[in-house]
């Protein structure tokens, strides 16, 4: 049982932190964080009507992603403004409609109750996510360095950004079981933020981000079992600890 949790957490965290390296480059930390909040009303509805919370989350996320994508290209409002307002509202809505006894789990996650079937689906989707990111990593990196340059060599930036947001949504849906809607953004961002402190090139950045994510996942589950704590918050605390160490190391590496 414990082994199954650890394996699932490793894959989900690896996918999320690999994605995170691009979220950091694109300075999309806030969007990612807010996006995870959108999942909450979806989870709530799933709990009320007894269907799989993962499906509820992914449905709400898909709508939100298309929303962001359209807003980015259609309106002149800053995306951060829209995201800030709309997504905080959906967190509030989610908090109200989620049944009380389920609220904590939806907010903070709980991987200890994960079924074998859920584990397998999570692992397969994580592998799919990693494969997609590795496949489009050069295009993504170029898009993030300069949209003009990427457009000038024929990359369709709009499509690329939609793909990016969709895989982001998938990562959020996957991670929610582990760390919950409230902390999901951190699952994506913190390992990459730590890696950025010491990495000098893209390859080491992506690898370190994944290593930190996986390390925090293993330690997170391990300590949560020993001290009988909720694994999500423990994971985030360990991640933050790694971040602090990386900040200190930055002085010596850079």
């Amino acid at each position, binding site marked *: 049982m414990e082994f199954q949790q650890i394996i699932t957490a490793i894959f989900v965290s690896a996918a999320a932190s690999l994605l995170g390296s691009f979220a950091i*480059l694109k300075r999309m930390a806030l969007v990612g964080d807010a996006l995870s909040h959108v999942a909450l009303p979806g989870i709530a509805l799933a709990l009320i009507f007894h269907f799989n919370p993962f499906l509820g989350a992914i449905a709400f996320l898909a709508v939100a992603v298309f929303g962001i994508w359209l807003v980015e290209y259609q309106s002149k409002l800053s995306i951060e403004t829209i995201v800030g307002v709309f997504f905080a509202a959906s967190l509030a809505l989610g908090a109200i409609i989620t049944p009380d006894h389920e609220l904590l789990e939806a907010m903070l996650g709980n991987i200890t109750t994960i079924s074998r079937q859920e584990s397998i689906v999570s692992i397969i989707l994580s592998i799919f996510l990693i494969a997609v990111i590795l496949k489009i990593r050069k295009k993504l990196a170029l898009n993030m*360095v300069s949209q003009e*340059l990427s457009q000038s060599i024929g990359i369709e930036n709009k499509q690329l950004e939609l793909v990016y947001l969709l895989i982001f949504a998938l990562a959020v849906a996957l991670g929610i079981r582990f760390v919950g809607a409230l902390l999901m953004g951190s699952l994506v961002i913190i390992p990459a933020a730590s*890696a950025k402190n010491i990495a000098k*090139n*893209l390859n080491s*950045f992506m690898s370190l981000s994944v290593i930190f994510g996986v390390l925090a996942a293993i330690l997170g589950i391990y300590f949560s079992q020993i001290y009988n704590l909720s694994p999500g918050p423990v994971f985030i605390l360990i991640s933050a600890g790694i971040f602090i160490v990386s900040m200190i190391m930055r002085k010596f590496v*850079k």
Partner: protein
Amino acid sequence: MKILEVKNLNVEINGIHILNDINFEVERGEILAIIGPNGAGKTILLKSLLGLIDYQGEIKWNKIYGEKIKIGYVPQRMDIETDIPLSVEEFLNLSGDSSKQKIKEAIKAVQLDEKILKSGFGEISIGQRQRILVAWAILGNPQVLLFDEPTADIDIAGQESIYKMLHKLHRDLNLSIILISHDLNVVFRYAHKAICLNRKKICEGSPKEILNTENLLELYGGEKAFYHHDHHH
């Protein structure tokens, strides 16, 4: 042989006419300079040539020996963080799969040392970055290079050497070059043809013919100042 024909080009952004009825042509191997004051639409012109923005009118890139023309683009500046985890070598590899050998050749062509490949793309100087962007552009084997004020943020000595390098690339690779420049000295020395632009085309011709006081006054708003002076006298 003409490689580019622009006819009645109009660009409107948010209801403002940025470019009005622009017409010009570029010959193979020609260096064309676009000059004009800030806000004249120079960058917008380059972007429409690249197909990066919507326009009305015709922009026709002709084929060379039956093959579609390849364009290299060097943007004016890039806002990137100094600690971006991306090495110069990785950046040069983002456009496709360039062999190590090709990347080294490109670095040599822009007169940099191979050692720079291991440096961070955000930590090199602006002049070096400009050269790396040129290297990036020539890795795609272009027949035309588009430069948006390649030396905007570089000191005078650095500017001089960038233009020398461009001139050499032009000779060695038989490139056509379309460049935006503020520096009339450079235009005089290197360009075969110049276009004065301020929302519309004000003059066109060889730099020696057209860069006279009268045209420059009109281009940079001198005449407008005189007009106001007369009006209020």
